[in-house]
């Protein structure tokens, strides 16, 4: 009996523990939506020897890969007018394909030539994979690739599209999948049921093109979703979409904000830090504003008490997160479309030519300590998990790890 009990316990441990013993990277810019992950140990001496594996993709994408357990999930679009939508799951250890699903786009696939239909990054709650495309096609899968539900948000809302392409990445917040579909004609944000995909709520949003992604903040035990647009940032409850607060000083429509607990760092008049802790309907309190720290396309990164911004000229600025005071600057090799990510004392960023740069950020000055040239266009943001960096280029998904 004791033996049986011991075997049962062992089985339980095996079934419930993460097989890879690594933190997942479940959405665009990681678990906190600010580019940082705790406890990962990606390679810092980047070189061609760092390429653990690469997998060919049949089409382009700007979407980041996400890491869910042993799965590396990535999307792309292929074929005439990018009408073939693909969702792939690769084994994170070996790069072997686990599953691949493909669909015909049901919405408009027109985009500006630099971006593409696979621009929004997928998201996960750890049990499901949610994949959204610029065509407004949205799919939910189990981790084994079972198709659980789908939505065609263009068939649902025929004017909800942007002829330049959409790029906002969905996030899971509380029990909802938050999607932000903003454009000149029919803008909305919605909280979808994770299990069925139906709208739990849907709110009108400013009628203006917007490519930013929702960001989740934690105010005490409460999760608040920050919806950014040219008008500012609206804080809503993920369960209901109810407005909690409204920051009305305007904000960028390409780089997204970065959250640290109940504080939000917004690309607004340069960079503006706000405190959002109160759930009493009071508007957020401005902590500081720095007009010189102006994010380009890349979204800000938060590492401890520091915030990092890359401007349109490719200059990385490190500032004190509490005061906004600039600590140091470093010119990187740009230009950048993706955002920086970090774990420990290292920052990772890939430029549009596919040059990956590892920046040591723990000292009083930043320093590029290694580079890797993937020799292929990279317009997306990397993902960090375990001992590895995952990044996608126009034609491949790459895993970089220590040899």
């Amino acid at each position: 009996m004791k033996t049986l009990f011991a075997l049962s316990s062992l089985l339980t441990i095996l079934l419930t523990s993460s097989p890879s013993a690594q933190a997942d990277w479940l959405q665009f810019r990681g678990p906190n939506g600010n580019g940082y992950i705790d406890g990962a140990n990606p390679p810092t001496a980047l070189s061609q020897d760092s390429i653990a594996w690469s997998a060919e993709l049949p089409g382009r994408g700007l979407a980041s890969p996400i890491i869910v357990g042993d799965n590396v999930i990535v999307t792309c679009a292929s074929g005439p007018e990018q009408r073939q939508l693909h969702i792939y799951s690769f084994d994170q250890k070996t790069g072997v394909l686990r599953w691949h699903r493909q669909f015909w786009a049901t919405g408009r696939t027109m985009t500006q030539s630099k971006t593409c239909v696979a621009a929004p990054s997928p998201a996960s709650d750890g049990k499901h994979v949610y994949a959204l495309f610029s065509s407004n096609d949205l799919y939910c899968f189990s981790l084994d690739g079972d198709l659980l539900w789908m939505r065609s948000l263009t068939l649902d809302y025929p004017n909800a599209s942007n002829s330049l392409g959409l790029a906002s990445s969905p996030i899971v917040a509380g029990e909802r999948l938050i999607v932000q579909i903003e454009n000149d004609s029919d803008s909305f944000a919605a909280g979808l049921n994770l299990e069925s995909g139906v709208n739990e709520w849907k709110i009108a949003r400013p009628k203006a093109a917007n490519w930013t992604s929702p960001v989740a903040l934690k105010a005490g035990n409460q999760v608040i979703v920050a919806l950014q647009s040219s008008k500012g940032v609206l804080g809503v409850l993920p369960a209901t979409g109810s407005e909690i607060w409204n920051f009305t000083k305007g904000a960028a429509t390409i780089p997204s904000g970065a959250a640290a607990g109940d504080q939000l760092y917004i690309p607004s008049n340069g960079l503006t830090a706000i405190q959002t802790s109160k759930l009493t309907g009071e508007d957020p309190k401005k902590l500081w504003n720095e007009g010189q720290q102006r994010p380009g396309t890349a979204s800000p990164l938060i590492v401890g008490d520091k915030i990092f911004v890359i401007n349109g000229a490719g200059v990385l600025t490190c500032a004190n997160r509490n005061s906004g005071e600039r600590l140091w600057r470093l010119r990187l090799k740009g230009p950048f479309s993706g955002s920086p990510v970090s774990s420990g004392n290292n920052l990772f960023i890939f430029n549009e030519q596919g040059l990956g740069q590892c920046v040591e950020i723990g000292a009083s000055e930043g320093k590029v300590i290694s580079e890797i040239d993937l020799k292929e266009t990279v317009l997306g943001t990397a993902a960090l998990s375990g001992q590895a960096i995952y990044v996608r280029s126009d034609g491949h998904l790459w895993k970089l790890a220590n040899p």
Partner: protein
Amino acid sequence: MKSFQPTLFFVSSWLALLLLGNGTTPHAGAATSTEIQKSINAINATGLEGKGNTQAGPAWKTLSKADTSAISPILQAMNGASPMARNWFRSALEVIVSQEIKSGKPLPINIIGDFLLNTNNSPQGRRLAYDLIALSDPDTAAKLIPGMLNDPSPQLRRDAVQGLIKEATDLQSAKKDAAASLLYRQALNSARDTDQIKKIAGQLKQLGNEVDLPRHFGFFTHWKVIAPFDNTNREGFDAVFAPEKEINLQAKYPSKEGKEIGWQDLALSDEYGMLDLNQPFGPLKEVTGYAYTEMEFDTARPAELRIGCKNAWKIWFNGQLIFARDEYHRGMKIDQYSLPIQLKKGKNSLLIKLCQNEQTQSWTVEWQAQIRICDASGTAILAKDRQPTPKAKKATRRKLKK
């Protein structure tokens, strides 16, 4: 670099799907025909805003675990299914097929081929059927393509056109210009995708051939136009100006500036059918214009009204508002929007409202649209009273004013 590289295995997404698994394992007992039909019904019951998703997920799982007996009913289910339902079916079918091939069993090519060769079946479904055959027997599949030059499925037709373009290009390279022209002309007759049409037309012109692209696409070339009405603060989009209340081509109305304006003729010679309101009215800002045309058809039939436009626009067909969109200067292309319409036997009418906004950047000058009527494959439906395409006027050298 470590030795393992999936790239080597990744010849195509399909091949990879088969070689490297599909993430599912089949049930010991495959679904019965009753279970398959029940699952198909559940997927066909899906609708807008997530309707039926809760039932469709388990239905997909049942189908994806089925054996090859499910292939025919799933392919048949593509006929008449909604775009989303077709995606549910496609995905389930791909899993079934990959499982079969993985386990070394031959695909029922005859059953799939029956579906492919019946041109009444779903165009997307038939393309999927072709891909499945190509997977199992690529040589046979390749032999089928040339016969699909006039296939109702644009996805199949495209490959046949591509083959002909390649043959014509080879002839052109060999300096056999007359033969190349002939093949390009045959390719153009069948081409429906804009990228292929542009490529073929370019080669034909290079070889000295005349090409009537407006007729090929079915762009409307003869219009009555009237402008400028107001669009200050973009309020003209919602405002109802006189042409929306009545079509009286002899009437006069007050313009934005209070002047009297009336309908005037505009004949388009642009090879891609550009209805450019800057031509007759100048590069105005914060204005609204209308264009109207009539056409006669021999028979009533369903059709698609296709539009490319980077201004805010509304369109009425036979007096009924079909679609309205208030997006400005985010880009345009041929067939940017496809709208289902019903053609009447006899006279039909088309009215489009084009709003120009206040932006002053160089890329916001355009005040234009490209409009055509075609069938679902993109084949132009030409009016019986269609006029010849106007000849482009030769550019005249302007004298500089001293």
